[in-house]
């Protein structure tokens, strides 16, 4: 609040004073009052007015500065109504009351939305668990008929499609949970080799059908949640299959460095254009590859990054366009938990 702004704001009041001064001046002139006395009265009036304005300005300025400080200090600014400084002015009190009421309704609305969101999340979770029963049913039916020659190929196709459904369902579940990773996080000493084999095994049919060879050398152990790592690795491997070229080979390796363990998934696929490399982890980003090849949702890597961030794991990509992609997952090791 600047002084000029304040004066401008008080324009009507000033105008009233000027009119009054003028009327008084004209009246006193008509009654033949002494001109110098008139001047004295008016000067006195002006000085009083100026003093009054100045004091009011100082008060108001202090009041609003206080309010601004409150706004800056609090992280929930919609609670201003509760925090407003007391004031003797009627207007201030009225405003305070109104802001208070308006904030109350905002808070109620937020609570309502939070509840709805929680409801929805719970529904998604229970839905995911429900749908896993039929997915399991389908996969068992396919498994039991994989050696029957007449229907062998059909069941293989169904099985592959079923796997896709399973992955999409998993993505929905992990997305719903990604906000509150800590609620479902069990840190264990995890053999990365075990996780890698589990994920490759899970996608066996798809990988064999795509004539993939995988070369794994994962000796290292990390402390992490197996389930989440398996999910992330699954996305990386599915991506490598999606963007493969002739005779695909995946190199999956771990390496122990001073500050952590690195898990790399390297393929000899189409690679990522350098100008797109920095954006692949963005939500909904489908690069040139994604639009050209198969349907891409732009969610896989976004979810990976999001989960990694929540778990304190690093994830990066390196790629040479046309030559292949290398995804790197870094598990930091802090000194006091790395006892072996």
């Amino acid at each position, binding site marked *: 609040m600047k002084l000029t702004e304040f004066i401008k704001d008080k324009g009507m009041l000033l105008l009233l004073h000027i009119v009054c001064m003028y009327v008084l001046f004209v009246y006193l002139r008509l009654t033949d009052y002494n001109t110098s006395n008139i001047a004295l009265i008016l000067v006195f009036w002006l000085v009083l007015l100026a003093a009054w304005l100045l004091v009011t300005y100082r008060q108001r300025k202090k009041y609003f500065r206080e309010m601004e400080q409150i706004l800056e200090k609090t992280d929930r600014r919609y609670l201003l109504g509760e925090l407003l400084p007391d004031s003797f002015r009627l207007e201030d009190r009225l405003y305070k009351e109104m802001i208070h009421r308006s904030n109350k309704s905002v808070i109620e609305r937020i609570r309502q939305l939070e509840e709805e969101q929680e409801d929805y999340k719970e529904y998604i979770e229970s839905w995911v*668990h429900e749908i896993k029963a039929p997915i399991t049913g389908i996969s*068992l039916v396919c498994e039991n008929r994989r050696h029957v020659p007449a229907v062998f190929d059909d069941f293989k196709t169904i099985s592959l499609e079923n796997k896709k459904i399973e992955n999409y369902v998993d993505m929905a579940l992990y997305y719903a949970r990604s906000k509150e990773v800590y609620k479902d996080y069990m840190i264990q000493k995890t053999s990365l080799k075990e996780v890698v084999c589990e994920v490759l*095994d899970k996608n066996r049919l798809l990988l*064999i059908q795509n004539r993939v060879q995988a*070369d*794994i050398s994962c000796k290292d152990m990390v402390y992490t949640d197996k*389930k989440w790592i398996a999910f992330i690795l699954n996305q990386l491997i599915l991506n490598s299959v999606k963007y493969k070229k002739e005779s695909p080979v995946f190199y999956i390796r771990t390496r122990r460095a001073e500050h952590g363990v690195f898990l790399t998934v390297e393929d000899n696929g189409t690679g990522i254009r350098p100008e797109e490399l920095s954006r692949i982890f963005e939500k909904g980003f489908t690069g040139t590859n994604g639009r050209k090849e198969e349907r891409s949702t732009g969610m896989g890597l976004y979810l990976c990054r999001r989960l990694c961030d929540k778990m304190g794991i690093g994830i990066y990509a390196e790629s040479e366009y046309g030559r292949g992609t290398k995804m790197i997952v870094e598990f930091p090791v802090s000194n006091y938990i790395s006892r072996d």
Partner: protein
Amino acid sequence: MHIFIIEDEPLIRRELKILLENAMYQVTAADSFENISEQIKTNLPDLVLMDVNLPGISGFDICTQIRELTDIPVIFLTGRTDSMDELNGILKGGDDYITKPYQAPVLLARIAAVLKRTMAHNPKEATVFTKNGVTLDIPKCSLFYRQAKAELTKNEMKILHLLFLHEGEFVSRMELVEYLWENHIFIDDNTLSVHVTNIRKKLNSIGVSDFIETKRGMGYCI
């Protein structure tokens, strides 16, 4: 080996039964979920496969009931993936916890692992195979013919193992590749051909020829 299935979804129950019967287990599936502990008492299975969400009762509670009776191993099967649930399952006395949708080979392997852990006597798998004088010795990772010996790589041994297991039948290339993947050897079709060629060379070097028969579109046979 007798496995008792407690699963409320009829399709999964049926298919699970087929899967386990194909894997040479004797299977009983519960049709009703009342008096489960009575049913188990009368059947006396070697292992119980149990769904966690059952109509009217939780698998965890049934497990507690079973534990009061016997030490029969229990494996939980569930669609829920929470860590808390898993912990609960183990705390209630479960021996393993497998989440749906499970991979059939993984399921079978984990059942076998639990049985192996809990059974005092388990039948040993054959580790030495012989056909027409050619012997595959798995612990030694070698092939023998008369006095000659050829050492095998892990991949070559796995390929021969499957062929010996299906002696006299044709094993398709696809089946071979899938079997190798199940054993964590992640190779493709072309590499399989290379391995088979190498095995033939080794067989020749110890004086065996035409041991592995190839038929286009059918696969390999010994």
